[in-house]
């Protein structure tokens, strides 16, 4: 059976990944920071119906011990695709009034998170059939497309996330693992907000 692990899974694009993979008959390891929270209700309901096809796992990708512990708990499993979907954006920031703590949080989740997940789950992916590690990036991370819109903290985190995935490709190529970054489009989710186009 094909299997996928998705981070940031309780809402938005992450939850949609889970629904669609589940509908297609996949085994889904759905990870989110707070499974007990109200906004995780839909995910928990889906997991309940799914007859163990979808399982929910508590995971904060900024916490090294949590990532390591989950990787160990899932040690017998094979994971075809890891999708690093968990990400933070935060409000626009005026230049001259940058919130450096918020920026550090964006780096911890959006940049360090994918590397930490890859380091922890490389064996699970290595023994699968498809062998893919993917990170949800953003067109806002592209240097070729950059302009100024008050998101230097978010943009720089996504540029750096793309750099992580490029290096990761080099690290895991000999295991036959494919690594990619992709832009999901500007999606009508809580994070995407009003005005989203997809």
């Amino acid at each position: 059976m094909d299997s996928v692990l998705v981070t940031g899974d309780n809402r938005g694009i992450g939850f949609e990944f889970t629904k669609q993979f589940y509908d297609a008959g996949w085994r889904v390891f759905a990870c989110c920071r707070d499974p007990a929270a109200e906004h995780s209700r839909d995910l928990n309901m889906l997991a309940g119906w799914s007859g163990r096809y979808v399982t929910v796992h508590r995971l904060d990708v900024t916490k090294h011990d949590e990532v390591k512990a989950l990787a160990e708990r899932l040690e017998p499993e094979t994971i075809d695709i890891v999708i690093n979907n968990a990400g933070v954006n935060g409000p626009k920031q005026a230049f001259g009034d940058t919130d450096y703590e918020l920026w550090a949080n964006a780096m911890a989740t959006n940049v360090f998170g994918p590397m930490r997940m890859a380091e922890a789950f490389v064996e699970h992916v290595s023994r699968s059939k498809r062998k893919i590690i993917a990170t949800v990036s953003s067109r806002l991370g592209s240097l070729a497309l950059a302009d100024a819109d008050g998101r230097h903290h978010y943009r720089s985190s996504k540029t750096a996330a793309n750099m992580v995935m490029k290096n990761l490709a080099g690290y895991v190529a000999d295991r036959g693992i494919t690594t990619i970054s992709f832009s999901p489009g500007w999606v009508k989710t809580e994070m995407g907000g009003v005005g989203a186009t997809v």
Partner: protein
Amino acid sequence: MDSMLITGANRGLGLEWVRQLDAAGWRILACCRKPDQADELNQLANNADGRITIHKLDITDHAAIDALAGELKDEAIDVLNNNAGVLPDRDPWGQTDYEKWRRAMEGNLFSTCKMSEAFTPHVARSNRRIMITMASTLSSVSTPGGGPLVWGDEKHVYRTTKAAINMLAKSMSGYLKDMGVIVISINPGWANTEMGRADLEPGDSEDILLDPVESIRGMRALIDGLTLADSGNLYKWNGEELPP
């Protein structure tokens, strides 16, 4: 008189910037963490008739940056040179030091942004109105860097800080365009400095490294020819375009 504020002025490329601009008669505000140990910089300053002033600054200390900006509030700064940076140790695959990564982001990225924010007024009232950030041979997302360089060379920590700096420079170029401030990111080349030599592979000859004198000459020629239309661009030390 043209003026530059430069961080990391006590050694390497920073010190070479000071040497060359001193010879060209510039006013130089030279920042470093430990002025009392910066012998060569002090010697230059002592022979510069007051054109070179030395300022103690740790660029990861945001309160200290604000304090220095306040202390220098009457100065016009033609070029803000965010030269200082850190080269973290390598991280073999599977053994990434995440705490070190956080500190590298603070030392290379957040520090550059904070300096630029604090000194925007000083630059905006100058003639040249230029800010430069330090890219790297290893900063491009589209290429691992040329030569024998490959993706996955245990330098992902450093690479991500420098890729992010290029995006920061792009964003800043937009924010500051209305003030007529030009922001560019420059890869100074892999230069024969203490930091550059630290990144040689065992057996590599120092001959493959760029002469710091050439690096700074190239960057000086580059900034001399800049216009506002160039703002947001990425360059190599010799004026060639740096891939994004």
